[in-house]
């Protein structure tokens, strides 16, 4: 118990505090050995007046909403409905396949995507286009960076919602479906009038949880495009924070400035999580896993 408390304190609470203090200083690798200078809210001023600030904000919103709508909730719901509609073992099999991207090491996963989007004759997508007699495209990642950022993230993200939704669907009492069928309801009617209303809470949960996850995640973008191609094309907020503070390409780690970017996100994340802890009575959700039924 004590060691757990100690570790959690050292690597969660202390960092949160340090992040806050850092954001008020101009600490960077260039003045690392000197004592910290406090410069008040200058970092924040600099951040909001950054020339690319609107661009980055727009990117973040675009990334979060599009991935969320099309994959983490949309596709996830579709997959959950389909896999619970078909034969049980087959549904299980497809769910397993969808877990693959999630358990694949991120670096390997991104190498696959990078190979897919290459120009002919190397790229996989272009090869398929060729087989179907369609014209060859140039390097797809440079042409449509957003499409592939969202695809790569979405294929990982969809499985989370899929699992939550399908376990929720399985826990709907079977009597309801039987009754509806006896009354002559079609499959679509059953989905619209029984399944979806029963999924309201899981839907809300996945939406809010994944919004938060997407907001702060940048690992796949870092690996796939590193914010490029060009200037800030696919750079999102969390990636900016990370790059300013820790990316060492130019040897200039502006820890203070990066911390300011990060802290704003932390504040957003905390507010959001406090709200959704209230709404969802999080205890119940965390206890929900039926792992002991293995």
């Amino acid at each position, binding site marked *: 118990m004590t060691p*757990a*408390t100690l*570790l*959690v304190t*050292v690597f*969660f609470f202390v*960092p*949160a*505090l*340090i*992040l806050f203090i850092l954001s008020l200083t101009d600490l960077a690798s260039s003045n690392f050995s000197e004592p910290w200078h406090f410069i008040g809210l200058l970092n924040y001023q600099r951040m909001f007046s950054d020339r690319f600030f609107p661009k980055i904000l727009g990117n973040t919103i675009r990334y979060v909403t599009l991935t969320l709508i099309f994959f983490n909730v949309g596709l996830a719901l579709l*997959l959950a409905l*389909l*896999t619970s509609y078909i034969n049980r073992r087959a549904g*299980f099999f497809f769910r*397993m*396949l*969808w877990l*693959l991207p999630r*358990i*694949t*090491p991120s*670096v*390997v996963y991104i*190498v696959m*995507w990078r*190979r897919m989007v290459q120009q002919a004759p*190397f790229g*996989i997508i272009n*090869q398929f286009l060729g087989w179907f007699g369609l014209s060859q495209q140039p390097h797809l990642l440079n042409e449509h960076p957003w499409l592939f950022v969202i695809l790569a993230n979405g294929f*990982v*993200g969809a499985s*989370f919602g899929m*699992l939550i939704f399908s*376990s929720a669907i399985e826990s709907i009492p079977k009597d309801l479906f039987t009754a509806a069928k006896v009354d002559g309801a079609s499959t679509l009617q059953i989905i619209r009038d029984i399944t979806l209303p029963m999924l309201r809470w899981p839907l809300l949960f996945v939406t809010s*949880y*994944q919004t*938060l*996850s997407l907001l*702060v*995640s940048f*690992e796949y973008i870092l*690996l796939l495009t590193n914010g490029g191609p060009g200037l800030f094309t696919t750079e999102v907020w*969390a990636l900016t*924070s990370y790059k300013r503070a*820790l990316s060492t390409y130019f040897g200039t780690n502006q*820890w203070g400035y990066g*911390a300011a970017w*990060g802290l704003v996100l*932390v504040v957003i994340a*905390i507010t959001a*999580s406090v709200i959704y*802890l209230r709404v969802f009575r*999080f205890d119940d959700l*965390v*206890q929900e*896993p039926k*792992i*002991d039924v*293995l």
Partner: protein
Amino acid sequence: MTTRFETEQKSGLLQRILTALPYVVLTISIVPIIIGFVWIIVATFSYRTQGILPINAQGKIGGLTLQNWTFLLDAKIWRVTFNSAMIALGMVVGVGFLSSLTGYALSRMNFRGRKTFLGMTLVLHAFRPELLLIAIFQVLLFIAGIPIAGKAFGFNTVGGVAIVMVSLELPLGIWLMKGFFDNISWDMERAALIDGASRFRVWWEIILPQIKPGIAALAIFNFISGWNAYLIPYTFTIGTKVSNLSVFLNQFSSDTSPMGWNQVAAVGLFQLIPILIFFIFTQEALLNIYGGGTKGGA
């Protein structure tokens, strides 16, 4: 009579299409992932690939080889593999041990600060580690300055990476474990306590065997996230001596120019093998842990 028969047939056909439709949609949707895996396996064993086909020097299909696997003779790869394994094992043991002890205490004992601690881990669970990297960096630099501990757990050490990852995973582990303990009946435990067994002995001999499946699931989950870890090792280490497989692979794929896709694929497959083995043998546990637990990320 005939009309009825016809409508039945029609609805039978419609029924069959409706039954097949989900399979078709599901299969199409998963195709990109399958193709990715097919490519990585094909590429590993060929000199060069175009799309997903192996191509030989004459531009025909063929040209299979094992030479992409020569990286296995390099001492460096074993060093980073060892580091990856250490991080993964550190997570399995560290998170498993600490969270099962803490979970037990939270589930069974009443002590001052229990409520606070529970609330705290809950908020942390929602708190995103990715955002704290900058500050953790400073903490690790500080630890590196401490004489003996600095060598083992400071910045740019495997121990440091492992300990950070363990800490970040702990809130989730503690909550899962507490859930398991809550579900176990209290009778056997009380009997043992009345017979004079110590708390620790009860925990070790009576309770833990009962939640073995839960511990196994948590261990699998932790092994996979430790083995795959990229961001934290990448941020907190410099050089192959302390980096892990993911970092090595990424370095390798951006260093070689023109990029040796096939060697990269080989290293990638090498990293994938343990994961795929886990995948095949522990599917059910995986489904449950990812469904119930919450891995961050996208």
